[in-house]
């Protein structure tokens, strides 16, 4: 009791004469005559209904521990115990502070214990109260899972009555927040127990059961795969969900059913070209984005739709022409509207609260819509003020909006045309660079990935970005713990080095440092390795650059190449490495690094006879560069290589079935003939 009193020291000062009457209610709970106690509890029940002040007073005065005590006492009559649970349920209906006080008084274990009683009325009262406590955001969800016997017991209570069904499914729907929770519920037969409730005569039960499935199936392959095979009254579950999406059903039901099908589809349990997705789920979600829906519904609708069609270009195409979705989304940016600001404070507040959510949802959906199709991207960028909106979204205070905006930008940056036009016109690189300075990893991943595209050679933004000191930033990304950031950093550098000036190349090598470069060449992530090799290859292009870099870093580079060619790597990695070698062979002075390295020459020979044509081609290219006629010392090189048996191999390769390889070998042979 003391704990509760101490919980709210502030409220004590608020207490006034009301306390006297409240005190009277509490005192009666301690009466010696059980009949008087019962009457006291009933009177208390009537006093607290709808009266938040009274509820707070009673909590402060310590009613909760006493009520819990009475509720748990086996000597209490069932009627008294039930009334106690009802009063506690009523107290829980008050403010969040009430819930906190109740939880602190250990109401949850007490009520869960009460569920073991056989009396249905009492169980229902306990469940009602538990429901109210658990759906509050202040209650730790974990409390449902602390005692492992609770979930199976709740499952068994599902058959007792419509009320137990409603309360229990509502508790599950709110308390299933992690994959672990999903697994616990799944393992205790949640699907088999809850599926029949989808056709319950009670609207509330149907709705809560549906919500359970949406939280259970979310990003859960196991659940989703099981759901497709479930029959409810002889009907497939997906068809039950489709019926729940009919336009005359409550919006909440339509939306939740669409979520269930979306999650099942994303888990691979339903094909993306299934009619229930193409003709039902997708149109339903598009409807949820319309102006007629509530702001919350529009947010959820857009987010779910974005998630649904993310991996499927056909769904993206359909959505892009359905109900003018692209322009419908533009409306998401018009909150708070200028009208609401003047006329209606309440509405302004409401709009403000949802404005961020709306914007991020719209960005997400645009990102998803534009992830594959060039025409859709064009449509998006042509939407009113779209690029300006993205640009301002990149610097919004809400991290969610920034992330979504950069995702959208990234999706659009896959378009060559947009990079050349709207991206440059709106100088999107500026806010993007700013975003990269100081952002959480998830934003950085997206932003750096976008930057990769902006640094492509044809992008007009490349020059100004280079001038803004991006190299240091990218080099620091390559040192990140996150593989995604390392890839993006090195990828951007690779793009930047493509056909770049000598100055830029030198700057990259300097800023990155050979040590880091070699560390990246041994990176556990193949993507990082590939992009690093790509960077090397781009650095080692055009003769003067090759010679310059090889003269300063030749030894290390040759070592790295040897290591990779000797190591266990994929064909692609080895091909890329042989291409680097071919570039080195193209240098004037750099050639000698290979010619003097017999071990390396043996390796090239080996790859010329490899079973993989790509590797043969790259190795032949390398030799071809070494024996090229017009260069100084070509005769010596030709002789040496002839002695090493390369001519025989080239001769053999002129008979190769692959036309490219055949041509390449013939060209090389001609060098000897000339």
């Amino acid at each position: 009791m003391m704990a509760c009193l101490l919980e709210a020291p502030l409220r004590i000062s608020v207490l006034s004469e009301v306390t006297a009457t409240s005190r009277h209610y509490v005192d009666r709970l301690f009466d010696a005559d059980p009949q008087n106690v019962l009457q006291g509890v009933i009177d208390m029940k009537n006093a607290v209904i709808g009266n938040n002040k009274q509820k707070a007073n009673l909590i402060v005065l310590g009613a909760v521990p006493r009520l819990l005590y009475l509720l748990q006492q086996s000597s209490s009559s069932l009627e008294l115990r039930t009334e106690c649970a009802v009063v506690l349920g009523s107290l829980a209906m008050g403010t969040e502070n009430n819930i906190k006080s109740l939880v602190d008084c250990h109401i949850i274990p007490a009520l869960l214990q009460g569920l073991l009683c056989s009396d249905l009325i009492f169980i229902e009262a306990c469940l009602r109260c538990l429901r109210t406590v658990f759906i509050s955001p202040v209650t730790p969800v974990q409390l449902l899972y602390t005692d492992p016997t609770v979930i199976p017991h709740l499952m068994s209570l599902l058959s007792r009555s419509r009320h137990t069904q409603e309360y229990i499914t509502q508790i599950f729907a709110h308390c299933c927040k992690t994959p672990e929770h999903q697994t616990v519920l799944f393992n205790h037969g949640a699907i088999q127990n809850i599926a029949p409730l989808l056709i319950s005569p009670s609207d509330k039960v149907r709705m809560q059961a549906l919500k359970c499935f949406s939280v259970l199936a979310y990003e859960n392959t196991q659940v989703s795969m099981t759901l497709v095979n479930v029959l409810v009254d002889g009907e497939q579950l997906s068809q039950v969900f489709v019926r729940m999406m009919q336009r005359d059903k409550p919006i909440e039901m339509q939306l939740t059913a669409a979520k269930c099908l979306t999650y099942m589809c994303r888990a691979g349990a339903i094909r993306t070209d299934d009619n229930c997705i193409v003709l039902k789920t997708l149109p339903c979600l598009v409807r949820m984005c319309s102006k007629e829906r509530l702001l919350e519904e529009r947010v959820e609708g857009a987010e779910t739709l974005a998630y649904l069609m993310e991996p499927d270009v056909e769904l993206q195409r359909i959505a892009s022409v359905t109900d003018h979705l692209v322009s419908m989304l533009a409306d998401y940016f018009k909150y708070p509207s200028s009208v609401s600001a003047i006329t209606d404070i309440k509405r302004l507040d409401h709009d403000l609260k949802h404005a961020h959510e709306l914007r991020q949802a719209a960005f997400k959906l645009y990102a998803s819509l534009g992830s594959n199709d060039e025409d859709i991207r064009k449509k998006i960028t042509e939407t009113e003020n779209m690029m300006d909106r993205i640009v301002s979204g990149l610097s919004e205070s809400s991290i969610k909006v920034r992330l979504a905006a950069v995702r959208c930008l990234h999706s659009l940056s896959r378009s060559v045309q947009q990079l050349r036009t709207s991206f440059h016109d709106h100088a999107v690189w500026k806010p993007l660079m700013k975003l990269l300075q100081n952002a959480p990893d998830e934003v950085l991943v997206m932003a750096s990935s976008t930057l990769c595209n902006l640094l492509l050679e044809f992008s007009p933004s490349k020059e100004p970005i280079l001038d803004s000191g991006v190299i240091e930033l990218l080099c620091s990304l390559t040192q990140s713990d996150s593989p995604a950031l390392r890839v993006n950093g090195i990828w951007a550098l690779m793009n930047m080095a493509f056909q770049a000036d000598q100055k830029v190349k030198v700057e990259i090598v300097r800023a990155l440092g050979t040590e880091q470069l070699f560390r990246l060449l041994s990176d556990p992530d193949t993507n990082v390795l590939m992009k690093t090799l790509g960077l090397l290859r781009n650095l080692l292009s055009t003769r003067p650059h090759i010679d310059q870099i090889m003269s300063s870093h030749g030894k290390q580079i040759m070592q790295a190449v040897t290591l990779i060619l000797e190591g266990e790597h994929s064909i692609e990695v080895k091909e890329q490495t042989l291409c680097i070698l071919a570039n080195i062979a193209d240098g004037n002075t750099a050639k000698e690094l290979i010619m003097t390295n017999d071990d390396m020459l043996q390796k090239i020979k080996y790859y010329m006879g490899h079973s993989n044509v790509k590797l043969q081609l790259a190795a032949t290219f390398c030799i071809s560069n070494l024996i090229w006629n017009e260069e100084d010392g070509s005769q010596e090189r030709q002789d040496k290589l002839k002695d090493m048996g390369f001519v025989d191999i080239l001769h053999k390769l002129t008979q190769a079935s692959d036309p490219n390889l055949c041509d390449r070998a013939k060209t090389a042979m001609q060098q000897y003939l000339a």
Partner: protein
Amino acid sequence: MQCNICSVLSKMAELGAGSLLTGDPAFNYQEHELNERLKRLYPAVNEEETPLPRSWSPKDKYSYIGLSQNNLRVHYKGHGKNHKDAASVRATHPIPAACGIYYFEVKIVSKGRDGYMGIGLSAQGVNMNRLPGWDKHSYGYHGDDGHSFCSSGTGQPYGPTFTTGDVIGCCVNLINNTCFYTKNGHTLSFCPCLSFQPNLYPTVGLQTPGEIVDANFGQQPFVFDIEDYMSEWRAKIHSMIARFPIGERLGDWQAVLQNMVSSYLVHHGYCATAMTFARATETMIQEDQTSIKNRQRIQKLVLAGRVGEAIDATQQLYPGLLEHDPNLLFMLKCRQFVEMVNGTDSEVRCFSARSPKSQDSYPGSPNLSPRHGATNAHLHNTGADSPTCSNGVTPTNKNKSHNKYTGVSSASSSPSSSPSSVNYSESNSTDSTKSQPHSATSNQETSDSEMEIEAEHYSNGVTESSTRIMNGTYKHQEILQADDNSVDDSCSSRQLCGGNQAATERMIQFGRELQALSEQLCRQYGKNATHKKMLQDAFSLLAYSDPWNCPVGQQLDPMQREAICSALNSAILESQNLPKQPPLMLALGQATECVQLMAKVRSGSCSFARVDNFLH
């Protein structure tokens, strides 16, 4: 309660349409599918007044258009050099407003040379040498550029282009006057056209050689789920009605409703129920209890076929009433004659030698009570054509409805409704002791409270002249009484006047009196065709050896008593300065009529605001 006129008419319209068909069974099947689908989609449409589009019109098209496959396939047969070679075709009929929401689809079989196809709507008289949308009162969605044309030569960017294999749909929402197109089952948002003309026809236009399109006016399932879209609007309109604000008048509202119920009970003579209701709701009943009971008694007599006694009772209780309404009197007497033939009227019954037990049993009208949804388990449905007629306010409609009613009612006479097969056990007529030598003794109050066994009906027509329109559902009620006599009645008593010689003589004498009355009325008021017909029909019964199975035998059906009973009840009420029909039925009739009027003034919401949706 169904708005049966509509269904009857549409049924007849269908029959008419069906008879025009060729013998191709596949086609007939498709036609059947079409009828079923159209009926389901547009239940409020009266196809006799406003037929639905079912195919392209071979008359209303440009010469470059060719039609085939029952006028559903359209192909281009012009030169297709430029836009001057464009050609369109309209459907056979415009879209009726009572559809509420109308939808059709067109499948692009071939995009031909350039795919210049337009799908949309146009009004009668719009130039057919054009694509839909280019001219005033014409709207179209074009395949080559995906633009929407709204009565203008320049289109607006609207949707994707469409080509061979695509299915394009056009949906007209006559509730909010919008239109949208669909492509392969996906809605393409509202078309930018702001206002629509009434009476638009589904239209397609083609412009280059090789272009072929197939229409689906409901012959096949639609690709787009139009029924789902309709369900949304139905729900919208229903909630609009349910949430109709009554504001401050909440108290008045309740009083009105109570009065509706109370007056309905009083009208039909549910005396005890009415009194209980009045007590519970603390409302007043205009008519005094004796008067209600008197009316109830007279109604029971008529429904039991004891018309003679009913006339006596009326004359005794309401002197002057029948004298002032000779038409009604004549109708009653005609009915009495029919009942004599039937052997049910007391003037012939007293001759029949029967077992004492049978004295209490009369072949009577089926017990009728207003249908209260599915709760009344005694009712057995005779089929979709159970006659329910609405209150007609416009006289032109009324005669028509009346005719339909009789026509159908005869068709619905199932064996169970033959005159003597159903017995009305007169166990609750203590109040009629004076004139009833053989009435049983039972408590009036008890019987009163059992509404289901009370014989009653209601009329909701305008009772001028002889046109009487019934409003109510007349169902045959099976009385599940194991009464030997009823079996006996139904088998052996089907003889003229119960097979009694004296009774037959009395009947013939009565016939002469009736003839004399007719002549007298004729002298007094001039010729009356209705009377003549009535008399003729009644006398015709005697021309057949088995009157129950003769062309005019339907008159012997106890159901026929209901109209006259209702007329008599209304006349009595009117004579007491009380409404001749209960306000509830008046309101119902008015609402039904109002919805029909909405269809006429092209208010599309009427299709989802049907009265029967609100009757349970």
